[in-house]
């Protein structure tokens, strides 16, 4: 039997190897052919490349007076700032060039150099010989200028397209704190970061990922603060990605995370530049993807889901209190249906007597067992939520009416569902929104715990929680234990976990991240108001 299995395994392994080879050979652009010297040849080639592409504009023209040089520009309509194109590219080439390039001294050998150096009033002009890279540039929104007789094209960066403005992100609202959020444009996003951290140590490396989409991806980190090994690991994992397209950072997330089968995301994401900046300052690495406002940050710890930007902007006491409320809410959202089921079907002795009698009265005559009731309500809630998220706003009202009135009230009145169960489910749902970063993982854990509680009561819940703990403790995110600083316990780091210590007290960066450059500020900056004697002068 084992021999047969072994043979099958061998066959399977071979197959997989072959598959992976075929995959790797078809990827990436081979070193492209150079730009041809002949303008006609280039033109034909461009036309061939962009056949049936209605949004491509090719404009032919001539430079100079008399012995004119033929040239053409090619760009994608809608991705180029037309004003800039007209004022700073076509006008200089077609009109100003007559003045700047003296007719008699038109040195064919230096036309391109002259155009590049003294005609085009555009900051970002590159000279590129590789035809494919030129085409790639055009597709990214650059304008290519081909000039007859040169084996290189000029690529002018005058991109400009319709973009969304910098707005407050819907997912992470704050009362106090910066309201700007990332947009879909990579450059805007990097500039938002650069404006927060005006330091040359903020490195932003870019690369292109996606066979078809050629999406720009930027890796940002703070040199000297971020762990070089982590940065290198991020680079390596990103380079290994070979897929069709990257439409959102979520694509990358699944390729670079440590635990692909875990319900927990070991890569963080945020829409807020100030959050990313704070994470960079703690020694994390950010991955920005063109086309999405969601920026990935690694390494990501479990505890980050419970920390909100505003904690650090408001006063420490309240921030600490709210943080504990979040822990509580997370526990409630994963465990309260399970706890309800276990209390009402296994451990009725643990309910205080008055509550016991009330719950018993509420459940009198309910046709379903508590587990089934809880499962039903859980599923109904997920349906309502999904409907509420997807529906157009005006219709959303209807959902809440149906949800609240029909499910909530009528089902209880009709005796289908106990009123206490409705309360439990509502509590679960509301609590789930408090820690929104983990709400998807929480849904899954909640179901598992519910099933275990339905079968084994508190023992089941404990088994589930222990399993959860084992899983959390075994996870790593880019080498950092996912559940730190709780497991492994780092007592010093708890001052930004269990409490939010005042800023002047958090002298060190989190040990698990910034251990090789730990000190982030001068210690002992606790505000020291002047003593009584010195105070006098303010009152005079």
């Amino acid at each position: 039997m084992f021999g047969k299995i072994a043979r099958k395994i061998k066959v399977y392994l071979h197959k997989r190897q072959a598959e992976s080879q075929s995959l790797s050979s078809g990827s990436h652009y081979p070193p492209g052919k150079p730009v041809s010297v002949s303008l006609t040849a280039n033109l034909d080639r461009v036309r061939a490349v962009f056949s049936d592409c209605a949004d491509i504009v090719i404009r032919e023209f001539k430079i100079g007076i008399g012995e004119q040089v033929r040239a053409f520009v090619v760009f994608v309509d809608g991705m180029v700032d037309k004003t800039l194109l007209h004022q700073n590219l076509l006008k200089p080439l077609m009109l100003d060039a007559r003045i700047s390039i003296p007719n008699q001294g038109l040195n064919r050998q230096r036309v391109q150099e002259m155009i590049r150096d003294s005609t085009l009033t555009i900051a970002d002009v590159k000279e590129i010989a590789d035809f494919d890279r030129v085409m790639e540039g055009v597709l990214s929104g650059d304008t290519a200028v081909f000039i007859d007789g040169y084996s290189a094209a000029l690529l002018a960066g005058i991109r400009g397209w319709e973009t969304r403005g910098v707005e407050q992100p819907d997912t992470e609202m704050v009362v106090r704190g910066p309201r700007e959020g990332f947009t879909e444009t990579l450059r805007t996003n990097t500039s938002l970061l650069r404006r927060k951290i005006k330091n040359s140590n903020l490195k932003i490396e870019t690369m292109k990922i996606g066979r078809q989409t050629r999406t720009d991806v930027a890796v940002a980190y703070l040199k000297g603060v971020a762990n070089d090994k982590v940065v290198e690991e991020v680079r390596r994992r990103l380079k290994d990605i070979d897929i069709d397209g990257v439409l959102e950072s979520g694509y990358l997330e699944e390729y670079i995370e440590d635990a692909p089968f875990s319900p927990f995301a070991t890569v963080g994401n945020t829409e807020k530049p100030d959050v990313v900046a704070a994470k960079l300052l703690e020694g994390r690495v950010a991955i920005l993807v063109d086309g999405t406002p969601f920026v990935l940050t690694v390494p990501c710890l479990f505890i980050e889901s419970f920390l909100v930007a505003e904690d650090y902007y408001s006063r420490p006491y309240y921030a600490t209190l709210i943080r504990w409320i979040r822990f509580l809410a997370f526990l409630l959202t994963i465990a309260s249906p399970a706890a309800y089921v276990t209390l009402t079907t296994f451990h009725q002795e643990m309910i205080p007597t008055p509550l016991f009698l009330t719950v018993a009265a509420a459940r009198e005559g309910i046709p379903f067992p508590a587990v089934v009731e809880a499962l039903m309500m859980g599923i109904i809630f997920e349906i309502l939520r999904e409907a509420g998220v997807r529906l157009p706003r005006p219709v959303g009202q209807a959902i809440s009416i149906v949800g609240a009135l029909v499910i909530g009230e009528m089902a209880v009145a009709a005796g289908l569902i106990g009123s206490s169960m409705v309360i439990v489910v509502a509590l679960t749902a509301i609590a789930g929104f408090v820690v929104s970063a983990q709400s998807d993982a929480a849904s899954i854990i909640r179901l598992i715990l519910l099933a275990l509680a339905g079968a084994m009561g508190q023992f089941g819940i404990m088994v589930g929680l222990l399993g959860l703990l084992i899983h959390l403790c075994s996870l790593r995110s880019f080498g950092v234990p996912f559940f730190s600083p709780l497991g492994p316990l780092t007592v010093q780091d708890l001052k930004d976990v269990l409490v939010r210590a005042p800023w002047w007290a958090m002298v060190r960066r989190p040990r698990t991240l910034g251990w090789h450059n730990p000190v982030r500020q001068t210690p002992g900056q606790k505000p020291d108001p002047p003593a009584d004697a010195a105070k006098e002068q303010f009152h005079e």
Partner: protein
Amino acid sequence: MKYPKLVAAMVIGLLVLVSLVITGCWNRREIDTLATVMAAGIDGGPGGRISVTVQVAKPGEIKPPGQGGGGGGQPAVAVFTSTGATVFDAVRNFALQAERKLFWPHCKALVIGEETARAGISPLLDFIDRDHEPRELMWVLIARGQAKDIISAEGELEKITAESIEKLVKARIATSKVVGIRLYEFRKMLGGTGRDPFATGIELVGAGEGKKRLKLTETAVFRKDRLMGWLDSDETRGLMWILGEVRSGIIVVPAPGPAEGKVSLEIIRASSKLKPEIKDGYLTMTIEIEEEGNLGEQMAFGDFTKPELWTSLEKRKAEVIEREIRAVLKKAQEEWAVDIFGFGEAFRRKYPREWREMKDNWRDLLPTVAVEVKITAKLRRVGLITKYNPPK
């Protein structure tokens, strides 16, 4: 079999699932399938049979507030009685008549019939202690008469009689004339050396046609586990003084000085200390009591805040306390030779070596212990009026 690990994991998962499905029903009982025992009574029956009476709550009749309709006048409890050869047997026999499974954790009170208690009570308690459902926090009460009648009685303000019993026991603090003993305390007294247990007595009062009411009256005193007799309320408070359990209460003394009438003194706090001593083979026990109280009421005219009247009030109060203590000592120590005060324990703690010789004939020694009572009774406050002037 492409992914053996996956297949194996799935098989294991399936096994777990199967085991969950087939095991799921072992201990599962929906909350509405339970008959919640609120109070239980145990009586002896003819021929050594045990009769157990339980009071079961009917949650449907106890409507949560906000849901109109009320209970429609239906009683909120049902009473069942069952017999068996042992307590457990009797409890199991409830399955023959009660439609739902008895559920014990919310049982508040255990009432034991007087006759049964005289025959010895510890065999009856074993089941309650051993079974995982009943809690040792339940109150132990001894019924004057049959436990069954107590359990069947109806409470006046509470819908559930067990709740009335519990509230009555808890209200003992107001008078200190009733004891409240939880099951584990009873067991502790029963199992301790040099100590005899006591428990609350409960009876039905109200003669004739009228509805009978529950009342806590006396204290049942045990010798080992057999009921010896009853202490009345003053004697009970004497016991409480000795044990240092008096929390509050009223001491009524005759008005001092020339005035006639009575004065009520409220107890605010009290404490006691037992000081055993062995001298030349004679056992003495000194009970030191410190009491503090307020002038609560004077049904007599006069100004008792005058120093001499004030001290005489204090003195009278001390006398009343001593009288109560002497009364209980006389009954328990001298007549019955039961050690509900823990004198034996006190001796054991102070004289462990001598105790070893004493413990076997402690019952004979107990009545010979000379008890000295030292009382420091203080009055502190007078309330909102200082004196009561006679009408002119």
